[in-house]
């Protein structure tokens, strides 16, 4: 049984290491994306001046319809943020830029359209608010 405990411990350690590496890779990717002023594939109606959320979805995404869309509506009621709904299938080039792996994915951009966060999966209101609110204050200054 001690052998099995050891295997389990190694597996948990490996999982934690993979998770840490993934978070590190995400942070580096975000940093490199921030160096690009405006991705060429960004739709023309996405303009600088206020915080923006790029909301990647698909027409048949139930989680988007039932969960993420109402959350983004609530977010817009709380803070002055532009939400752009994008079809991840139709906007493949842009989806590739931000490394979209699933829907819903929300990309939070600051007023200069630099990415602040990329959230894979359904993102709660509090988390999105926490990502958008500091950029709103920055925009008001």
């Amino acid at each position, binding site marked *: *049984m001690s052998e*099995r*405990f050891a*295997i*389990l411990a190694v*597996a948990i350690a490996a*999982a934690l290491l993979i998770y840490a590496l993934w978070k590190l890779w995400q942070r580096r990717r975000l940093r490199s994306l921030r160096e690009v002023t405006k991705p060429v594939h960004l739709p023309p109606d996405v303009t600088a001046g206020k915080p923006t959320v790029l909301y990647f979805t*698909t027409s*048949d*995404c*139930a*989680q988007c319809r*039932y*969960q993420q869309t*109402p959350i983004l509506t609530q977010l817009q009621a709380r803070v002055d943020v532009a939400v752009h709904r994008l079809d991840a*299938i139709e906007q493949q080039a842009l989806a590739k830029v931000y490394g979209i792996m*699933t*829907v819903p994915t929300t990309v939070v951009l600051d007023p200069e359209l630099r990415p602040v966060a990329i959230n*894979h*999966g*359904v993102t709660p209101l509090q988390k999105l608010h926490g990502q958008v609110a500091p950029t709103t204050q920055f925009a008001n200054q």
Partner: protein
Amino acid sequence: MKVDQTALKFNQASIILLLVLAFLLNAVWLVAFVAAVMVVGAVWPQAGLFKQLYARVLQPAGWLKPNVIDDDPKPHLFAQGLGGIFLVLSAAALWLGQPVVGWVLASVVIVLASINLFLGFCLGCFIYYQLGRIGIKPSLPSWQGGK
């Protein structure tokens, strides 16, 4: 339709805990038991043992609080069914004297349930949506209106 996220998370946590215990104790019967619970719960949602335990004991006792949100239960049931099939194969491999194959299959379920529980990404649901995109909508009569 509504889905109780707490019930889903309790279901995932129970699966992870019991499968880890099964591995530590080398208990093939426990893998088979979890497989049966998952398959039965996927085919007949109201009969899911962990969901029943949550709904009849943990929630009334106030130990877990419901978090009911608008969602489609079908992708979650599909994901559970997929996990159940993996565990049936795992139990079969273990019984046939193929421990490596058996535990690798079980570990796939543990890893995916953990990713769902801790990171909120459901691979089974993702596969369900991808199948939907090519016109395949897995469904059972018992899934209509089931949680």
